């Protein structure tokens, strides 16, 4: 089992960050690595069990992920991959935010566990950890720090 953990400070209050990130269908609205998304079967994006179907920017394929857990109380979202152009199996990831009370900022943490079934483990870890999670926090910080 491979585990990836990435965390970063976002210079905005937790309600603003969560407001953007809690929408399971909203990834392409702010993450440059992804485009086009819809929730299958006409479900709402906060329905546990719903499936998001979205594209990697530049025609690199489609990803389907199922929402397993969403908590406005714990600022947590957990989901698993159903289909992806990535050599992984049993992929489960959790996004969790923490308030930083003394500075009114947010710590974003993102954890994924999976098995690499083909090719180099470090390439997959880099794509997930830096390309997806690290990039997400970087973009979120750029987006929200300005309007603080």
């Amino acid at each position: 089992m491979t585990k990836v953990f990435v965390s970063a400070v976002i210079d905005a209050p937790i309600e603003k960050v969560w407001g953007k990130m809690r929408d399971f269908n909203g990834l392409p609205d702010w993450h440059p690595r992804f485009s086009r998304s819809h929730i299958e079967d006409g479900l709402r994006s906060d329905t546990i069990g719903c499936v998001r179907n979205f594209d990697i920017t530049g025609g690199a394929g489609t990803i389907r992920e199922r929402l397993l857990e969403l908590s406005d109380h714990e600022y947590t979202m957990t989901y698993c991959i159903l289909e992806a152009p990535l050599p992984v199996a049993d992929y489960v990831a959790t996004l969790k935010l923490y308030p930083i009370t003394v500075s009114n900022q947010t710590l974003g943490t993102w954890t994924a566990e999976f098995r690499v079934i083909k090719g180099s483990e470090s390439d997959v870890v880099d794509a997930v950890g830096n390309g997806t999670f690290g990039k997400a926090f970087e973009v979120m910080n750029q987006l929200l720090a300005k309007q603080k």
Partner: protein
Amino acid sequence: MAKVYRSAVIDAPIGAVWALVRDFNALPKWHPAIATSEIEHGLRSDAVGCVRRFTRKSDGGLLREQLLTLSDRDYTITYNILVSPMPVANYEATMQFIPITHGDRTLAQWWAQFDVTQGPEQDTTTDIGDNVFVVGFAALNARLAGRSGGSK
């Protein structure tokens, strides 16, 4: 039941922060409000169930607190108050630390739940949150900042 939660970034890697704070007997080493501390019955300070007996600098007030959870895996310490000069009952608190991979820093969190037995609840929650927890974070940061493994 009153609740208080505070959190702050400590500008040091989690290994350095945890090495200092996991010692249940180390409050006088890093918290400016605490004068002396000892573990009762000669137990080790990482023996879950041990009791620390310590005094405040301001008034010499005595506190006894019992270690309920210590986790090197989750960087977590949970304890409750047995004796305290503060107007609280059923007091249980947790410190938990989270690594910040971007910048090799640490998020420190400290929270508590308790009943206030005298005076306005808000006064006690603010006192604990700001004068115990936040003051503790500032002292940790002042002591450890810059001890990062190169990246800041």
